[in-house]
């Protein structure tokens, strides 16, 4: 099967398929991303506030939120008066 330049992903997808694990992980990431951006749409939040609002373990909230900072979806805001926790805001 000859693959057309610029459409080779389709060629490989048809040839070998995509593992269920990969599809599930993408769904899970999208679900968490939607939940985080939804929460930040309302107000700026610290990681602890976000974790509480989403009923998510703190370390997971940290990981996903800071990953979204890297991807440019979320920006780092101000640090609190104790210089301990930053707040985070949605990039609009």
């Amino acid at each position, binding site marked *: 099967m000859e693959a057309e330049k610029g459409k*080779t992903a389709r060629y490989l997808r048809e040839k070998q398929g995509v593992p269920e694990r*990969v599809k599930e992980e993408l769904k899970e990431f999208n679900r968490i991303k939607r939940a985080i951006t939804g929460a930040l749409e309302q107000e700026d939040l610290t990681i602890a506030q976000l974790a509480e609002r989403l009923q998510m373990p703190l370390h997971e909230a940290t990981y*996903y939120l800071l990953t979204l900072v*890297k*991807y440019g979806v979320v920006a780092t805001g101000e640090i609190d008066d104790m210089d301990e926790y*930053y707040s985070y805001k949605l990039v609009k």
Partner: protein
Amino acid sequence: MNEEKKIIHYDALVVGGGIAGGEAALNLANSGYRVLLVEKERSLGGKMILLSKVFPTLDCSACITTPKVSEIARHKNITIFTESEVTTIDKRSENDFVAQITKKPRYVHVEDCTACQLCEQACPVSVRDEYQQGLIGRKAAFIPFSIANPKAAAIDIENCTLCGACEKVCPTHCIDFTMQPEQFELHARTVVMATGFNLFDPLEIPRYGYGQHKNVITSMQMEREIAPTRPFNTILRPGDGKVPDKIAYVLCAGSRDASVGNPICSQICCMYSIKQAQLLMGALPMADVTIYYINIRSFGKGFEEFYQQAKGMGVSFVKGKIGTIKEKENGNLILRYEDISEGVVKEAEHDMVVLSVGVKSNPDAGKIFPQGALKLDPHRFVAQTDLMGSPAKTSIDGVFVAGTASAPMDIPDSILSAGSASSEAISYIKQHQEA
């Protein structure tokens, strides 16, 4: 798999593209020999390219590594295979080492990639970034890290959904999912083994709580946190994003510990921990940094002064052996330790703990040669058969060892070792030159 095996000829094969392998390749190439440099990762530079600064000079690590890697990549006598593995090396004669090499597909034509990162932005997948030590995510279409060489995108095929979004946005059409593994049979006249070391896995010591207590991290994770290409905007606890202000270092985590199969000193942990402590005090001026140690081994040039400098900056040194690390509800950590000076058991609270993980051998080096021909020492580093007279010599005539493949050592010693290995390799080639 592309079944067609390509036969290639070079003067020297260098296995490993870290700082030692790179240095050895450069020396050989500058002497006029054609070198094939084989690296299993997606970038040259080994572990050094991921470091923040180097001890005891506090020079920027990337500023040293990047020009060197660039020189290697541009050298007309050096050919580089990244994402490649040397599966076997067979010595057929004094002049003919035959290596079987598998080159994995990158799914990107490197020469056409402009590193524009549009594929990265388009990719919907997010997985843990191994180059940031899992502290943050990365895409499945990604540039390994900002100073990677080659600086080109790669596709993480294990996690790719094959959605084609990267291909659609690529302006140079350099993404190609039809790429397949390539097989090479290399004929070389000499071999330099620069396969480096592995970091100790702290999961092997459950009482330290690594993996379970989220604010216990490894020294390599802290190295990323303090590097200019850091994962976060500042130093943060991975457990809750707090800026830490009471940080502990636990030295000899997996070194000098026969119970985890690594009874030897890793040579570098004392000094890299002291380096990190100094950098932390610069980044977080209000932070308390405490180093728990058994002995401080500041044996190298300028090391003792560096140690004294850290003390002068306010780093606390406690001669103590850590028994357990427990986590409090607020994520802080209670270190229970034996105060060796006073001979009593004490407890101390910190909000972040860094395990100064040790150096372990990379036993892969021994597996490449048939029937154990390449001898390993009792700690599974490549054995140096004439340590005093000819330290790069191995048990196979014509195969030389460079850098931490032979023993734990710091960066200057790795470079010296690579110099020795390349000199011996050149001498070997000249000795066995066919008339």
